[in-house]
């Protein structure tokens, strides 16, 4: 049993719904009690979809348990096929129906439906949403694309894009961006799946030269099967960030037998220049804590470290299936990856790491808000805000521009930060007053902090454990005189110097001893 106030992922049948809802002409009959229909509004409310997801629930009740819930399931299958006329039917059980052991797959077989029926075995008490989506996609691909003949001659520049789904973080815009990028590079994108694909499109997958796995969490299993069954190579470099986008294009061109040239749309890249412009100097070494799904977390760490000049002070994911990849990435930054789906553990890790910026999910946004640290959301679970009306990809060159804006804005802009520092002692412009554009990200100090002297900076906002009391008043005052963009570092260094040397309490003397020590 796990205590959960917040869950990063839904149950696996929600993953299956995401795949069904991504596709055309697929219907999912879910053996489930009343109440499980809540999942519909993930699509109609969060994603603002204009149609109901293609799911029929059996809605069995307690009084049905004595009689035959299996008959209810069969009736629901018949009715759904008659009404919605799908070209493929997914059948499965939610967590409660799993306990009834009605075997939806077996029952559906007895119905003699004249469309492919794909039974889903999604163990609800072991697995979660993303795994469910990956498994469903894999099973659908197998059902639709097995026993196909791979054409004798295939144009080398043909490819499929695999992995984007309904309710995926910015997937809609990523697909648009990447399709254009590939096409301007002379590639021919044949099928995008599951988002927007029909069962017939899945059957055409083996007709392309290679696959592009845009979201490994969803498409890895299916791509590996296509490689095994048809010898189709696949590319799984994720084009998030400028350098990875370049690498992605080069690898795609290589697979297509094309020589490497810069993409025409590279001139859209503003991140590279913005990042070099002097206003970005203040980004250097900012400590950033990253937590999210595996793809976005790994990509975020790379951009943060290499393209924005941050220091990655924490990296983790809630996806155990991709723990190995995240651990390997964390090693590059000299970190131990945090692999957990317990948000309380994530919160502790954030407090411990004392970041100046958090890149995370909606949950980390809550945590950061409480700690008064700026935060940008980089990953599912999705929120209504993750389906903006404007075009806002994460991938490709435009995606890199979007990322620059959305990560850097919650921090103070450089010029503004320096001015605040200069006017620190001014009665109006103290550095405890946040910049005017930050209200959405950084709420005003709690009422009991209103009386605190000016000079509370980002570094001081994270609740300090007992060590805070080890400073003499005089030393605290002296610390406040240090420009606040380096104050956090000064505090950390001084405290570790004091701990190492058994100094207690920290005096002005200690502060400057530590400064001298670390200057070496």
């Amino acid at each position, binding site marked *: 049993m796990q*205590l959960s106030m917040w869950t990063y992922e839904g149950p696996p049948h929600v993953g299956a719904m995401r795949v069904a809802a991504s596709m055309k002409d697929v219907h999912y009959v879910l053996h489930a009690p009343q109440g499980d229909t809540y999942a519909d509004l993930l699509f*109609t409310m969060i994603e603002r979809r*204009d149609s109901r997801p293609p799911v029929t629930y059996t809605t069995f009740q307690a009084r049905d348990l004595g009689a035959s819930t299996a008959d209810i399931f069969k009736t629901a299958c018949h009715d759904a096929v008659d009404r919605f006329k799908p070209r493929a039917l997914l059948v499965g059980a939610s967590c409660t129906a799993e306990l009834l052991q009605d075997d939806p797959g077996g029952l559906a077989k007895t119905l003699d439906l004249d469309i492919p029926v794909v039974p889903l075995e999604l163990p609800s008490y072991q697995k979660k949403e993303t795994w469910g989506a990956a498994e469903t996609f894999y099973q659908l691909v197998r059902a639709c694309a097995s026993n196909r003949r791979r054409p004798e001659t295939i144009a080398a520049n043909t490819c499929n894009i695999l992995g984007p789904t309904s309710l995926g973080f910015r997937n809609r815009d990523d697909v648009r961006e990447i399709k254009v990028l590939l096409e301007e590079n002379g590639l021919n994108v044949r099928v995008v799946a599951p988002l927007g694909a029909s069962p017939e499109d899945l059957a055409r997958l083996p007709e392309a030269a290679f696959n592009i796995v845009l979201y490994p969490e969803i498409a890895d299993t299916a791509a590996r099967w296509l490689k095994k069954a048809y010898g189709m190579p696949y590319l799984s470099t994720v084009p998030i960030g400028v350098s990875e986008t370049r690498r992605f294009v080069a690898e795609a061109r290589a697979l297509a037998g094309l020589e490497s040239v810069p993409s025409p749309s590279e001139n859209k890249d503003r991140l590279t220049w913005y990042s070099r412009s002097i206003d970005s100097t203040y980004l250097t070494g900012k400590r950033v804590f990253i937590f999210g799904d595996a793809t976005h977390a790994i990509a975020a760490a790379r951009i943060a470290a290499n393209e924005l000049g941050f220091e990655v002070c924490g990296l983790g994911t809630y996806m155990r299936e991709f723990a190995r990849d995240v651990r390997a990435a964390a090693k590059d930054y000299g970190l131990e990856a945090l692999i957990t789906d317990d948000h309380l553990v994530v919160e502790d890790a954030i407090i411990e790491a004392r970041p100046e910026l958090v890149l995370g999910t909606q949950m980390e946004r809550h945590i950061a808000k409480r700690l008064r640290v700026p935060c940008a959301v980089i990953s599912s679970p999705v929120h209504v805000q993750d389906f903006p009306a404007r075009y806002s990809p994460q991938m490709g060159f435009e995606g890199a521009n979007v990322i620059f804006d959305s990560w850097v804005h919650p921090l103070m802009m450089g010029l503004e930060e320096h001015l605040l520092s200069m006017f620190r002692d001014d009665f109006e412009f103290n550095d405890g007053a946040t910049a005017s554009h930050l209200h959405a990200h950084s709420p005003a100090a709690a009422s009991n902090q209103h009386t605190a002297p000016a000079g509370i900076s980002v570094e001081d906002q994270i609740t300090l454990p007992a060590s805070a009391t080890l400073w003499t008043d005089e030393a605290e005052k002296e610390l406040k005189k240090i420009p606040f963009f380096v104050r956090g570092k000064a505090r950390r260094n001084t405290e570790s110097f004091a701990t190492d040397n058994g100094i207690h309490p920290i005096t002005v003397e200690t502060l400057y001893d530590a400064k001298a020590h670390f200057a070496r």
Partner: protein
Amino acid sequence: MNQAFSAGCATGPTIRERGQHEVFCGLTSIIWLHRKVQDAFFLIVGSRTCAHLMQSAAGVMIFSEPRFATAIMEERDLAGMADMHDELDGVVDKLLARRPDIKMLVLVGSCPSEVIKFDLSKAAERLNRVHAPKHRVLCYSGSGIETTFTQGEDNFLTALVNEAPASGPQNETKLIVAGCLPDVVEDQFTRLFDDLGIEGVQFLPGRSSAAMPSIGPGTRFILAQPYLGAAAAALQSRGAERINSIFPLGEQGTTAWFKAIADTFGVPEDRFEAATAAPRKRAKAALQSFLPWLEGRRMFFFPDSQLEPSLARFLHSETGAEIIEVGSPYLHREHAAGELGLLPPGTAVSEGQDVDLQIDRARKADPDLIVCGMGLANPFEAEGRLTKWSIEFAFTPIQGYEQAGDLAELFVRPLRRQSVLKSGLGFEEGAPCS
């Protein structure tokens, strides 16, 4: 599947349906219960689906640490590799260590815990032995195989009633108002009870776990919500007597509700008039400006909260709207009789749901406004139909005189919005959605 039988009232035969129910389960009533009883914590013993439901459907990700949580059952619990009761004790210990301020811990049963027959009352008894009196532990079922949406509150109140002390001469509760009401409504009602000279009124649930009413023969109770079948039965079994009335929605509903109470307690007619004249006038005035929007409008209710018969009665008799179908997830015939009796003869009433068939009926009837759950609303809007989210009636203060106008406004808002957008977005031509 559909059987017709007489509802025993003026409306037409009830359409009874079984099929896909597009209705929340009883767990979701925790959303308002945890805001109401401020020292209670609701721990769902369930699955990842339950946790996901609470977070995405109901919590809408606005609470990072609400006063509810889920003890998620895992493979090892079900496979017998771990003792479920030991596991639950561990979760409760962890929770109470984190939230020592919690006075009442409520274990809530879910579909999977009900199906595997996990005995929560036994668990509550055991946990009470360990944690009472600091933390009181009780339990009820909010499972979707047994309850819809608001029935979760019904089961919670039933659990409270079963725990409530007997009323004696020391702590005499004369009147219990049963049904979670927003604090602002509770305060308004309290002032009206004072003006009527009725003493010893208690609300169930109280705002804190310590403020629960005592019950005994001689206690009268009135329902503030129409979905409290089980709680009413529990109160009656403790000797309390029900005051029958329609529900306090709109000016007429509120007057009828207070009148039923006043008559029971022998409040003189002139005192009743004096106490209610001003608020009645205010309520009528507040309704006035909304009437042109609602008169003659054709309304279709999908089932959601069991408030539907009361809402339909309000729309029909106080705003002149036409009611095409009143869907309710469940009809308590006795409690809803008064409301249904005030609807025009022949009004279609449906109980339960086959959502696809009901959507067919709604499309055919082509009403001016569809009141439905959030899963259906945007798809209907995309078809060019107007909708009102039913869930707002459960979350917004709508009871009593001072809210009569607000209640009408909830129905008016989509209509007014359409008229505002019409010119700006060219809605008439309407780009069809895929």
